[in-house]
């Protein structure tokens, strides 16, 4: 035991393999399908398959389901290498980085056999079905019901902001199974065929062009064996998974490409005959972006390290989440100041700098402090769970 910020030999070898693969196979188009949540198209799926066939997917998953039985560090390395190349996560990432882990922890053997091997191969995707019109931060206030009908559950209600649902194979659904109990003890999780009878999916287009969805259930029959774990434990399972999910989803590495882009821009752009890179204000702003990315990356490294060493995480991944999302907003603001009026130009416009990536990121940066839990709720978690302050 001693402070160490490097990779082991094995980890470094894996990282290099992944890097070499991605440099060859990860096109800009695929990266953007991934990053911008545009929905995985044919190319994205084909890329996921190639990633698996190259032997680089699934190292952190149990051997009996097709993995290598190694620690999560390998999946974190994979995600970081993707992030460094504009692609924030693995293809089919809800399955691979969120849902899959809960199935492993809580699913029956039959459910694991049915789903995990396909997740490990990167074949299937899930839509995350938590949020409802009246249940955002207050998830326990959900109204969707799943009523036990003996042979099946009958599901009715509406979800909103279910991002991957339009191309996902399955819906990871939270619904009330006990209408009398406190919501914390009356919600269950289900796996539902996303495009089965009775389900209607309507697009919601966000200000950055990402698509998310409303999902309506009208008398949808869900087989009993698609209940995840025990009935009425759903809320607990969601909370149990939350910290780990943040470790996979909020990856500071995805901001390095922006930094590199800005460095090139500052070197190549001149103002009054001098490169921007020589302007002290520009140097300060870019350096501050680097300072924040490097320090945030370490928050993430630390929280993930806790996870793969089986330490109890109280609020560490939450810290990463809040810091990363707010850093993104500051980064964009700094970047836009460097571009000055050109920062307004959208991709495809005449004169657009940096392919419009900064303008897009500006639009996107409004969501990071909200999606997957707002900064306010996050600070509450840090204060109460992390610092032991009394609940208000």
């Amino acid at each position, binding site marked *: *035991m*001693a*402070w*160490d*910020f*490097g*990779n082991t030999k094995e980890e470094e070898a894996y990282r290099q393999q992944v890097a070499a693969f991605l440099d060859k196979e990860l096109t800009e188009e695929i990266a953007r399908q991934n990053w911008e949540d545009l929905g995985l198209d044919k190319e994205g799926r084909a890329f996921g398959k190639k990633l698996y066939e190259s032997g680089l997917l699934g190292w952190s998953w149990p051997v009996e389901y097709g993995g290598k039985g190694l620690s999560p*560090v390998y999946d974190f390395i994979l995600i970081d290498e993707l992030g460094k190349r504009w692609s924030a996560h693995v293809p089919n990432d809800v399955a691979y980085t969120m849902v899959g882990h809960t199935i492993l922890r809580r699913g029956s053997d039959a459910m694991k056999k049915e789903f995990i091997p396909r997740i490990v191969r990167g074949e299937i995707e899930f839509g995350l079905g938590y949020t409802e019109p009246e249940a955002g931060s207050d998830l326990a206030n959900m109204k969707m019901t799943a009523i036990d009908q003996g042979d099946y559950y009958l599901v009715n209600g509406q979800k909103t902001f279910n991002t991957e649902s339009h191309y996902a194979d399955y819906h990871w659904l939270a619904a009330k199974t006990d209408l009398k109990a406190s919501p914390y003890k009356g919600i269950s999780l289900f796996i539902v065929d996303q495009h089965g009878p009775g389900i209607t999916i309507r697009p919601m287009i966000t200000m950055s062009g990402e698509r998310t969805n409303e999902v309506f259930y009208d008398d949808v029959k869900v087989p009993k064996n698609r209940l995840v774990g025990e009935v009425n434990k759903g809320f607990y399972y969601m909370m149990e998974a939350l910290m780990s999910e943040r470790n996979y989803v909020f990856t500071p590495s995805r901001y390095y490409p922006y*930094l590199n882009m800005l*460095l090139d821009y*500052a*070197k190549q752009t001149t103002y009054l005959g001098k490169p921007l*890179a020589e302007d*002290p204000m*520009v*140097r*300060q702003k*870019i*350096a*501050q972006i*680097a*300072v*924040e990315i*490097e*320090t*945030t990356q*370490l*928050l993430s*490294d*630390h929280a993930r*390290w*806790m996870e793969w060493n089986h330490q109890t995480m109280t*609020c*560490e991944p939450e*810290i990463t989440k*809040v*810091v990363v999302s707010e850093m993104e907003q500051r980064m964009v603001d700094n970047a836009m100041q460097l571009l000055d009026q050109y920062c307004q130009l959208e991709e495809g416009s005449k004169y657009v700098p940096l392919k419009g990536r900064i303008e897009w990121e500006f639009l996107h940066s409004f969501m990071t402090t909200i999606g997957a839990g707002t900064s*306010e709720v*996050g*600070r*509450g978690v*840090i*204060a*109460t769970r*992390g*610092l*032991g*302050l*009394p*609940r*208000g």
Partner: protein
Amino acid sequence: MDFTYTDDQKMLKEAARRFLAGACPNVEWYLEMEKDEKGFTPELWKGMAELGWMGILFPEEYGGIGGGVLDMVTLMEEMGYAALPGPYFSTVILGGCTILAAGSEAQKQEFLPKIAEGALRMTLALSEPATTQFNPSLITVKAKAEGDGWVIDGTKLFVPDANVSDWVVVAARTAGKDTDRDGISLFLVETGAPGVGIALLKTVAGDKQCEVVFNNVKVPKGALLGEAGKGLAAVEKTLQIAAVAKCAEMLGGSNKVMELSVAYAKERVQFGKPIGSFQAVQHLCANMKMATEQSIYITYKAAWMIDQGMPEARKFAAVAKTWVSEAYKKVALIGHQIFGGTGYIVEHAMPIYSRRAKAGEYAFGSPNYQREIVAQELGL
């Protein structure tokens, strides 16, 4: 990756926590140390020497225990937590590290074991009045070869603890223009030598920063530390360690402020409830926690890189000094906010920490200076 202390570091940390809790007993004592010309007590100095802290960074052949920068930051974090006053930092890091980096074998043998024993105090005289912004290569203090030695003339400013030092390492120009990187030489000068004038400055933190005037000060040939004209490299090495050690000290202070404020938020009742149950206060506490947490790992990573001899250490030390300086400042401000009026009173612990946060921010390069280093390291 590993985010844990070694067993030895854990022991060091615990011993330091215990010793310093007794040695720095209360705010009254701090205030006394701030008023006191020396700013520390002989017993305190002796106690630290007995614990082996003076030689923590020196190899065993010079009376040290052969520790690395990671060991040093482990200790510094505790010193910051306790808000330890006195010339430990100046002696061991500014003086000791510079001699270790630049000194001849004979100089190392002469000085380092004495520092390790606690028998000698030192500092580094680098900044000058013209340096409104920190810049280690802006040196106008001149040293001229004369006869068998050198003659030093000029004024140094913001020299920590010169008033209690036996020796001072002086960075003086022996060639070149005022801002040239080359032409800077280091000299070991006794503070009692004729022509050396030391005046204590009045500072926000009550620490002992000095003006040191060299008026026709004659030193022998052997006073030259390292090669003539090539002193800046050793100074920069020392500054890198000093910046990271200062981060650790600020990190310790940050932790202490957070601990005090969170404890207060749990016990202070207004409107019939602990103020820590109000969301506005909870969010302030969360902000402290985030800023502090983000300070820990960058400090230890920078220290680790220096120990590993990695060239990226320059960048990461600068990243750390930028971040931690601003984080500690923010944490101190929040601490005051949580304590309300009571934290504004001079006998309270908060002002000790918030005033030191300010001193730390400007020591060895403010965030503006450090960001410039980061920019250079990014290839700008």
